[in-house]
């Protein structure tokens, strides 16, 4: 780890923006998130258009159990905070705390996914399957898209942690952490909208 320490000492204050490649990566990722906004925006639009179309199967207000969802929300919001802590640690060139915070982020992400799988399983048992109504199809598509984003984020951050153990924090790896952090916040923001539009509005009717 002495090598890592040496490299970290030579790092500039914002290592993710030290190279043109790093700056390109960050700008490109912001643009990608712009496209993701449209993607989720379209999924939300579809959901809003179809959410009351339930000719058969349970409706939203019959189905949702807000306490599980509130717990999910709490977990994911906390993971956003821990990922901020990781980025702050990176800016101070503290590799070990950074990795620590990231491990917590990943674990929280896994907990969220576990809850989501549990929740979907419950719904299916209550007769709310992908094919039961237009509401169900659009619900599973929207929430499932978000879930698969979380799963990808968990995988991604895990590989970053593993490669940093080997390579240390450098001007090459720093931008990767930075954009992974952006990604994680984005997922979190999308979930806030899902919580509001899908669950709260669904419960109200």
């Amino acid at each position, binding site marked *: 780890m002495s090598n890592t320490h040496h490299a970290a000492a030579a790092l500039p204050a914002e290592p993710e923006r030290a190279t*043109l490649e790093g*700056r*390109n990566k960050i*700008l*490109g990722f912001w*643009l*990608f998130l*712009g*496209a*993701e906004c*449209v*993607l989720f925006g*379209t*999924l939300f639009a*579809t959901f809003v*258009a*179809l959410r009351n*179309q*339930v*000719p*058969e199967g349970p409706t939203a207000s019959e189905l949702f159990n807000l306490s599980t969802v509130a717990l999910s929300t709490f977990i994911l919001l906390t993971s956003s905070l821990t990922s901020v802590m990781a980025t702050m640690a990176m800016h101070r060139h503290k590799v070990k705390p950074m990795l620590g915070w990231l491990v917590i982020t990943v674990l929280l992400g896994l907990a969220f996914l576990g809850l989501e799988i549990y929740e979907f399983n419950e719904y299916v048992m209550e007769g709310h399957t*992908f*094919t*039961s*109504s*237009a*509401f*169900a*199809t*659009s619900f599973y*598509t929207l929430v499932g898209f978000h879930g698969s984003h979380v799963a990808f984020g968990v*995988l991604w951050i895990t*590989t*970053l942690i593993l*490669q940093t153990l080997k*390579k240390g924090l450098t001007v*090459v790896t720093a931008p*990767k952490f930075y954009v992974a952090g952006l990604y994680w916040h984005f997922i979190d923001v999308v979930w806030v909208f899902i919580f509001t539009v899908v669950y709260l509005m669904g419960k109200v009717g």
Partner: protein
Amino acid sequence: MAHAHKVKQYRGVMDWLTTVDHKKIGILYLAAAAFFFLVGGLEAVLIRVQLMYPEQNIFVGEAFNQLVTMHGTTMIFFAAMPAIFGFMNVAVPLQIGARDVAYPYVNALSFWLFLAGGVLMNTSWFLGGAPDAGWTAYAPLSTTAYSGFGMDFYVLGLQIAGIGTLIGAINFLVTIINMRAPGMTFMRMPLFTWTAFITSVLLLFAFPAFTVALVELMFDRIFSGNFFEASKGGNVVLWQHLFWIFGHPEVYVLILPAFGIISEVVSVFSRKRLFGYSSMVFATILIGFLSFMVWVHHMFTTGMGPVANSIFAVGTMAIAVPTGIKIFNWLFTLWGGSITFNTASLWGISFIPAFVVGGMTGVMLAAPPADFQYQDSYFVVAHFHYVIVGGVVLGLFSGVYYWWPKMFGRLLNETLGKLHFWTFFIGFNLTFFPQHFLGLMGMPRRVFTYLPGQGLEEGNFISTIGAGLMGIGMLFFLINIIITSVKPRTATNDPWDARTLEWAISSPAPEYNFKQTPLIRGLDAFWKEKTAGNKEMTPAEPLGPIHMPSSSIMPVVMSIGFFISGFGFMYKVYWVAILGLVGALLVMLWRSLYDDHGRHIEVEELQDEGVKA
């Protein structure tokens, strides 16, 4: 330290499979676009053959619908779009004085994903029939209840190609924002680069909507979802909204770069600075912005009600204003100039009247009550072909003749070029002008036949003759390419006495583009240096080693992964689908774990090359 890395240099086919050089990727894009243009053109000719006389029985029913669908989809997604990406690759980094695009590896991936999607979709011809619900794929015709297996190829082919398009757009945005040479401010960028920029913005924000539409259709088709299944609460009009929220910006994705090419060509061949450069930039941005708020004009007869129809009608008419600004700016660039008529400028200059006709009918279509008559008739077919062929294709061919020497170091033959132009242009007008009247006389679009005695015979006959003439024009073009490719490379750096940076370096451009990054001192940077008596650009940096990215076969591997996964989904063999996706993910992982150190071209090598040139 980086000098120590020895990187394998490939030759021949492997060079093309592994290249990350934007100029070579540009050529790959253009070659693939040409191939798909010929396929789509053949489909068009077959359509016209069936419609040459009333009540013919050559391509009937499903077969005709497959031809129509594949013609539209191929031309838009697999001919026009890659041609535009091809020119963006060929010209944009050179025009802004960059050594490459921001992500060379991703650039290669964009191309191979597009090709994988295009090939996947066209394999449908051999695997049970092509898509048959029109390129617009309106639900519920496009769902499993009413259309064949072919629509699965449409859904998956376009999704795979769409990923490539999206990352390509991001690549060019970052390149243009971050990689401009010193002094190349936004308001000094050549107009083609500007249009490439706005086109990328449109793709970035429009394509995800289409991706979602395709995902929904795929879920309905493969997993029995209910997005468009009315009996389970689905909504068939939802598809139309999602499709056109993407589909209308897509039209501008195609036409804006054509505007850019015309702006370059008109300015170069009249030896004048582009008239009203800032208003051209402003008009481009405005058109891009407005293109997102007019999609309902494709749906006036869907039953949206008078309020929505009126709002979108006014929005649509508003687009005529910035477009008009562009037309007049081109005319006044020509005014007072010294106009050369060669093949490149003929294509470019003839764009103006052809596009004006398309624009005129566009304004006519914007009036909803009149549109109730035009909608889904041959009038619309005539309109969008005047825009897409008279606009996009004429612009693209102008670009082909204009940039050919920069790409290959050879000038295309002028005589054959002019034969190509005249046959194609006359054929184009013969094909599509009568279609305006066919539509008004009551011929709906996408019909495989018409009955005799309804006044539709003459127009259809003339139209078919015109299509044949366009086909003959394309033969001249192919002969021209073959003849030119065996000639020696004699093109000079600047055969057209042009104005922008790409003409300041050798033809074809060296792999590192600029030996020294140039210093930009104004609009039309190279012209400015030439009028100041300089032969070359003033360098902005001392001569030094140049870092180049390594070639890689991984983009091809990753695209094959998506291709296989696509087949897995279509045939519902999910382990194959997952295997393909996992393969693609592993490539991403490999790319993340092993850093690409690239290689350096040393000063001595640069000086050697300088001597050779």
